[in-house]
């Protein structure tokens, strides 16, 4: 295990420009290097490198025993990862697309989430489940969904989603290091976004650095992805990605990108909109959100998932409860509708757009 503790602090602080997908690849690579117990398992992740190439080259470098092309069975992937965890392995499972996770839903929610509790803390389940999620790529059914709330509703799971290459790199390393199971939702439409990535960030595998505490977070409001994660633990903490004074946009995953564009447009119209990237749905960093809303007095939550009983409903409830006397308007939500994810030709009418976000912003100012 000594190798597991040598890595991070001895690494050079190299900054590279990477796509979000490549940043995850780099995070997986470093975790595989630093802990021989780390494994990857999924469909087509070996020679092909995954349908999105996120695991490109890893089987070649780490072998078929550590980067495993699994049978085509999602419950089997998660169920065997649980068994491997009981032998001390930290398996990163890849679910090929969001809509394909449901065969594994039982293993995730009734076994993976609960075994630590069932064993009264004797057994740890450090399993990461990577899920490319979200829409906007013109795909067929089951390839564009946002099921994160279904998992966040289950105690025992951590549910996170990065929106930048830096966070993708840092958070995948922290997710692997976490002693708890982590659902890692990757915004597939943003896989090709480029950004600077400081490869020295991220917890060492096997360490306890990523305790994901929601309170006392290290979130800064400087809007810089690199600087804000410099303190180490990003897992479970939100981040102010654009400071503002008039309204708080709370978002995560693929919706961060469109929310930032909306904030830019709003600025041109004279409204200063603060944008918070939650990065984590469970736990929810309520402190960062409420601190912002107490200053701005207005809050709009944006996500691709349906708004009905979605993560935004939880944010709205908590903001209402904790910031009631600061609010100038009710908390509003922008997101998907209570319909099956629509066909590709009309998906942009379903997804949160700059216009729909600005419409909500305008409504928040009518109260």
């Amino acid at each position: 295990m000594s190798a597991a503790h040598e890595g991070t602090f001895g690494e050079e602080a190299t900054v590279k420009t990477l796509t979000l997908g490549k940043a995850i690849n780099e995070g997986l690579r470093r975790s595989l290097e630093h802990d021989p117990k780390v494994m990857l398992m999924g469909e087509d992740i070996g020679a092909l490198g995954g349908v999105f190439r996120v695991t490109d080259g890893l089987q070649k470098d780490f072998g078929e025993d550590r980067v495993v092309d699994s049978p085509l069975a999602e419950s089997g992937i998660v169920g065997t990862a649980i068994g491997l965890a009981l032998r001390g392995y930290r398996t990163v499972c890849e679910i090929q697309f969001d809509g394909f996770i449901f065969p594994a839903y039982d293993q995730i929610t009734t076994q993976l989430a609960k075994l630590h509790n069932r064993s009264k803390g004797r057994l740890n389940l450090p399993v990461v489940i990577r899920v490319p999620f979200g829409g906007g790529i013109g795909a067929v059914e089951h390839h564009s969904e946002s099921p994160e709330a279904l998992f966040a509703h289950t105690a025992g799971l951590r549910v996170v989603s990065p929106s930048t290459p830096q966070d993708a790199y840092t958070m995948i390393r922290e997710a692997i290091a976490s002693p708890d199971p982590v659902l890692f939702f990757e915004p597939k439409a943003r896989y090709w976004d480029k950004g600077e990535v400081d490869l020295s960030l991220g917890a060492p595998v096997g360490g306890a650095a990523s305790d994901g505490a929601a309170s006392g977070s290290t979130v800064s409001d400087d809007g810089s992805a690199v600087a804000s994660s410099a303190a180490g633990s990003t897992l479970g903490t939100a981040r102010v990605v654009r400071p503002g004074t008039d309204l708080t946009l709370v978002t995560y995953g693929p919706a961060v990108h469109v929310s930032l564009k909306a904030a830019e447009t709003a600025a041109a119209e004279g409204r200063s909109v603060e944008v918070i990237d939650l990065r984590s749905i469970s736990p929810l960093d309520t402190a960062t959100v409420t601190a912002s809303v107490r200053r701005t007095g207005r809050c709009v939550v944006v996500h691709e998932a349906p708004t009905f009983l979605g993560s935004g409903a939880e944010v709205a409830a908590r903001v209402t409860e904790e910031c009631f006397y600061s609010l100038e308007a009710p908390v509003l939500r922008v997101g998907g509708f209570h319909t099956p994810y629509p066909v590709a030709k009309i998906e942009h009418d379903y997804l949160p757009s700059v216009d729909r976000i600005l419409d909500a912003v305008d409504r928040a100012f009518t109260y």
Partner: protein
Amino acid sequence: MNQQDAPADVDPDLVQLLTPEGVRVSDEAVAPYAARVAHLDAAALRELYHDMVLVRRFDTESTSLQRQGELGLFPQCLGQEAAQVGSGRALAPQDYVFPSYREHGVAFTRGLDLAEILLQFRGVDHGGWDTEKHNFHLYTLVIGSHTLHATGYGMGLQRDGLVGTGDPERDTAVVAYFGDGATSQGDVNEALVFAATTNAPVVFFCQNNQWAISEPTTRQSRVPLFHRGRGFGIPSVRVDGNDVLASYAVMDEALERARSGGGPTFVEAYTYRMGAHTTSDDPTRYRSRSEEEHWRRRDPIDRLAALLRAEGAWDDAWAADVEAEADGLGEHLRTYVRAIEAPPASSMFDHVYASEHGTVSAERAWHAEYEASFDVDAAAQGGAR
């Protein structure tokens, strides 16, 4: 009669070393299995009898405790003692077991204090024992889910270099115990796929006790269950699960294959759930008295007792000692169970996550404050609540 037209006793595929009358089978076809129990002398046979008697006492005592309201529910393994004790006694200490929820007999062979099993049925624990102390995983209540955990565990053993080394102290197998109903579950089928394609050292030990609550095995399969394993390319065998020697021998062979790197085995232990599914069940609604009577004549404990008597290994004083030990177990169970109090309500917030989670911490703090508010009221009323 049950749906299985051919009585188990005349099934040519059935591995049987003891007839229901307790006579050793000298058929050449089972000679390789007979060789695997040849080393079991009179003392070893008495030990197997002892185990089965104690396991049965555990069943009857636990059922009584449920009837007295001390347990919320209890699933008996009545009638399956031979399948469980025989297979369990073939395990090596380093082997690892993933039980379903009726494997009290296997638990006994792994050295558990059986009283710990009752914690979950008393409603004070979701698990109950230290899995690593006995290499015996917690009971899994969702049917078949644990067969995948067993397979993953086996994949871990392969990576740890604990398979096929030739060192009997080192080579390790993993066993998944499940029932006839579980064979219909997707997870069991996925586990068979994963184990077959990875050659994982897993024994799939299916106790076909003929009933999945009220559903007979014809609701699960149109072929004998052990044929299922063959479809996955896994060596599969049907054994008389009421025959403790055959259960031992078949398991011994399967474990040897797994440990040596020969891959998985599917065992169908053909047995009968003599009791109800659980204390909440009523088998009179779905099965006949005559069927129960048919199986009562195949009682696994009577069968071994007959052999012991026939071979001069029975000793009345020893048998009385076994009964006395069973009485002692009963006393231990009653005392242990009745003394267990409910855990504090705040314990529900323990071990939800291995690392801190803001929501749980906040709710724990709220709950503590809420509870404390009653203490303030109590104090205001002079402490009388």
